[in-house]
């Protein structure tokens, strides 16, 4: 099928195109130089914004803890449901939508690639089971390594090659994409009931600190040539004063950087940018974090923006969720996963009039606005922790319009305004910067060379928004921005039209990316049998049954590592 999108204003930062009137030609699922206009289907997108499809690198959409969220929050679904119609299966929202609804709603936002950022390896067959059911979008999942016994033991014993071999084996066996670390060592401590883990404090019974663990995994990541840096959720998340931990963490691997490529991605930094000694004195240290990021190109971050309203927090950071449960005294779910990691789920309502929530809201935006390089700061809500992904357009409008921010600032507690910097920031994102932060940069940091841009050879994942960048001033017309980005005029995936004027017209299967990692054969030949031996002692499943066969994935899209493995 051939298409020609004519007359749109194209924003394609990878190819340095900024609101230029351009035609985009699509053939056989790819962007091509040109098509025969007489044969192709011509779609006139005059005066509209044409961007690459959105690439979301951190959104909790599939797997065990997401399903716990769905299961124990029927109240999340009652008022937000979707009737079956046409190609659309029925489903429910709101902060923990069912799988079909998740795919449809992302496509309607013009997003075409979404990655699940945390999967417990033992439960990853489940994650893939759900990912298979999410229509349209391309996806992947990041296995959790930061509380893994094999990893901690090999790093403790200074056996980095063995660690790399284990990580390589695990990554390809369960079809994962990147090394995810959540509260390094802290979840293992929580399994003994300890709720706090410091970055330089020894992990109970394992004899190493989170610092050593993170450094070890950053080295392993380099050895294995994984396309994405280590994706890290810092210790002390949510705790007043934790910005110091975040700075320490980023600095801990600075010496391991080589060249321009970032080696560490810190996720949802808003939750880790707090000053103060308790919640009453909570303050923003987004400026210190931003300052460090501005000066140090070895890190990237995503913001984890808060949206006022009802949502569900869910994370592998079990101890944090326990602490949140004690604060809120509502429902609490926890699931420690043997050998590997854990999870916690707690509903929350962020309230404008709540001092703490208001400060959190400011911090996320401050991070995005104070960090100068849009190629290193990405827009997320850590869905659904900060808020549902369906609210992304609202975040866009806040970033692009100081007026939109002021409207909210007016209604938050005065003290929250005083203890944060947001009111003094004038910067407003342009469409170009928005495209970088939500598509071009995220695709790049994930190593997805065919995504996030509209150059020849790219996958034809395209989003067209009904907003004229030459006539609309996002600074004043922020409502138009929000409306336009809430319902794509056209979403195309692999050259097939998925969304027409905000409605789903097709729901094909999306890819599941995974990295076919390998360590040197002679090392693997020693390490894997050793892992197999300890399996019986550690786990309650057979080594043989731990695997996710490639055939299990609805559309398997393996990626080779960037460099030959081993060092």
């Amino acid at each position, binding site marked *: 099928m051939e298409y020609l999108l004519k007359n749109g204003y194209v924003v394609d930062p990878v190819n340095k195109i900024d609101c230029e009137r351009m035609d985009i030609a699509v053939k056989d699922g790819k962007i091509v130089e040109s098509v025969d206009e007489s044969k192709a289907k011509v779609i006139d997108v005059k005066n509209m914004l044409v961007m690459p499809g959105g690439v979301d690198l951190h959104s909790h959409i599939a797997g065990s803890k*997401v399903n716990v969220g769905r*299961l124990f929050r029927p109240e999340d*679904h009652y008022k937000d449901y979707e009737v079956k119609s046409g190609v659309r299966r029925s*489903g429910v929202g709101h902060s923990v939508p069912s799988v079909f609804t998740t795919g449809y709603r992302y496509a309607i936002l013009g997003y075409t690639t979404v990655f699940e950022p945390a999967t417990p390896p033992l439960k990853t067959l489940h994650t893939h089971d759900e990912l298979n059911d999410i229509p349209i979008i391309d996806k992947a999942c990041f296995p959790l390594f930061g509380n893994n016994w094999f990893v901690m033991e090999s790093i403790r014993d200074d056996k980095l090659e063995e660690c790399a071999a284990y990580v390589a084996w695990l990554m390809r066996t369960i079809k994962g994409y990147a090394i995810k670390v959540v509260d390094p060592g802290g979840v293992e401590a929580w399994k003994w009931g300890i709720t706090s883990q410091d970055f330089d404090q020894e992990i109970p019974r394992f004899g190493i600190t989170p610092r050593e663990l993170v450094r070890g995994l950053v080295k392993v990541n380099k050895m294995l040539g994984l396309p994405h840096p280590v994706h890290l959720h810092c210790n002390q998340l949510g705790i007043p004063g934790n910005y110091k931990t975040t700075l320490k963490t980023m600095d801990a691997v600075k010496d391991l950087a080589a060249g321009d490529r970032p080696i560490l991605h810190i996720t949802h930094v808003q939750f880790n940018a707090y000053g103060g000694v308790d919640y009453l004195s909570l303050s923003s240290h987004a400026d210190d974090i931003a300052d460090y990021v501005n000066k140090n190109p070895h890190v990237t971050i995503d913001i984890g923006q808060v949206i006022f309203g009802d949502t569900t927090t869910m994370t592998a950071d079990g101890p944090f969720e326990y602490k949140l*449960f004690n604060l809120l005294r509502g429902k609490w779910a*926890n699931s420690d*996963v043997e050998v590997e990691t854990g999870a916690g789920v707690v509903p929350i309502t962020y309230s404008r009039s709540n001092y703490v929530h208001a400060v959190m809201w400011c911090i996320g935006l401050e991070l995005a606005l104070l960090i100068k390089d849009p190629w290193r700061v990405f827009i997320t809500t850590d869905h659904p922790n900060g808020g549902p992904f369906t609210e992304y357009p609202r975040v866009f409008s806040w970033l692009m319009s100081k007026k939109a921010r002021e409207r909210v600032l007016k209604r938050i507690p005065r003290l929250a305004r005083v203890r944060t910097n947001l009111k003094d920031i004038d910067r407003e994102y342009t469409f170009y910067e928005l495209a970088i932060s939500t598509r071009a940069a995220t695709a790049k940091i994930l190593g997805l060379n065919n995504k996030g841009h509209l150059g020849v050879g790219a996958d034809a994942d395209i989003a067209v928004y009904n907003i004229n960048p030459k006539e609309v001033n996002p600074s004043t017309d922020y409502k138009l921005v929000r409306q336009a980005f809430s319902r794509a005029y056209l979403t195309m995936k692999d050259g097939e039209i998925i969304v027409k004027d905000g409605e789903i017209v097709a729901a094909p299967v999306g890819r599941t990316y995974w990295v076919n990692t390998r360590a040197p054969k002679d090392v693997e030949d020693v390490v894997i049998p050793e892992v197999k031996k300890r399996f019986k002692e*550690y786990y309650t499943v057979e080594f043989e049954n731990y695997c996710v066969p490639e055939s299990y994935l609805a559309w398997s899209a393996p990626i080779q590592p960037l460099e030959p493995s081993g060092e």
Partner: protein
Amino acid sequence: MKVINAVLCPGCGSLCDDNEVYVEDNKIVKVKTECAISASKFLNYNKERNTKPLVRVDGQLKPTTLEDAVERVARMLVEAEYPLLYGWSLTSCEAQKKGVELAEEVGGVIDNTTTVCHGPSILGVQDFGDPTCTLGEVKARADLVIYWGCDPSSAHPRHMKRYSSLIKGKFRTPEQRKVVVVDVRKTPTARNANLFIQVKPNQDYELITALKMLLQNEEIEEQEVAGVPVEQIEELAELMRSCEFGMLFFGLGLTMSEGKDRNIDAAITLVCELNKWTKFAIMPMRGHYNVTGANQVLTWQTGYPYAVDFSRGYPRFEPGDTTAVDVLSRGYNDATLVVASDPVANLPKDAVKHLCSKPLAVIDPHMSLTAFMADVVIPSTFVGIEEEGTAYRMDGVALLMKKIVDPPEGILSDAQILDLILKRVRELKKGR
């Protein structure tokens, strides 16, 4: 003869995956297992097996073609105003997904055996949450294991040896663990416990409340609560408070007795509170090998774990209204499709009466009691023996069941049969 290792057992919710099965000439001749249920499953599955599609003619079940059977089932579902699709716990997730699609297509209500098993547990989770873990955490750390209202020696024979009190873990040996059983009768499990507490039927809620009071250092004025002397309750409270990792496994003793989901509310909040003093978790003992899968699939596809109604075109969940026993006993449904379950054996009389008074179709490898009463019976393959498929263990770990032998000629899987029915349903709907 060849031996197949690491075979998952399609028996109970323990989903043990270390069985050795010996196959010769496409027949299972031996199975190495300590579990009587597992052995029975692997060696007896072909007994009382139905291998032909059947249709009831003049009161008797007579053989027919698969095409005819599928046609009849499709017509039954399309012509019904409110069909019930029930069962689902003894088949693969792949089949369960087809069931959801079918229920949505015909605007019926889909429910699984959770509804008469751990449904109340899920209601409790929806009220208060779920502090839990995977079974390997129990193996690694638990020094206190409580079985409340369940009898693993009878229903989950290898549970203790594989996961809890009788196994060596990284941080704990069997000698370092204590087992407590709370039950209304001295079950086989209770006979081997360190502490057995015999609670009066229907008074678990009171006993849990007494435990909570003791944990809060409140004094109990009675001499006994729920038939249990206060000294014994104090002993249990002390064990709970002073352990390093406590695990509360519970069963139908709590879900089926008076109070039902309120008993689970109490148990969950008890465990939440215990986390103030030490590490504690809770887990329901799921009965069938893939009832957990039915909940998981239904939840991620519709938002709700069982009793999902599609009559308005979108998923609705109303325990007491969309749950199978209520649907049946009030006569809401006018047709039923039963897959991988035997409600005639397991549901109360009046529910079964209505079930049998309306058009009834069954997809099942066995000649179950429900098949015996049905209008149409379609034989299918055994997942985990003749069919690959995904199943979820009681702690939510997903595993792939293996295919060990070929099924009899012409017998399809539940998923394939449902797919045929779905296709035919769509054709019939188009034609209307």
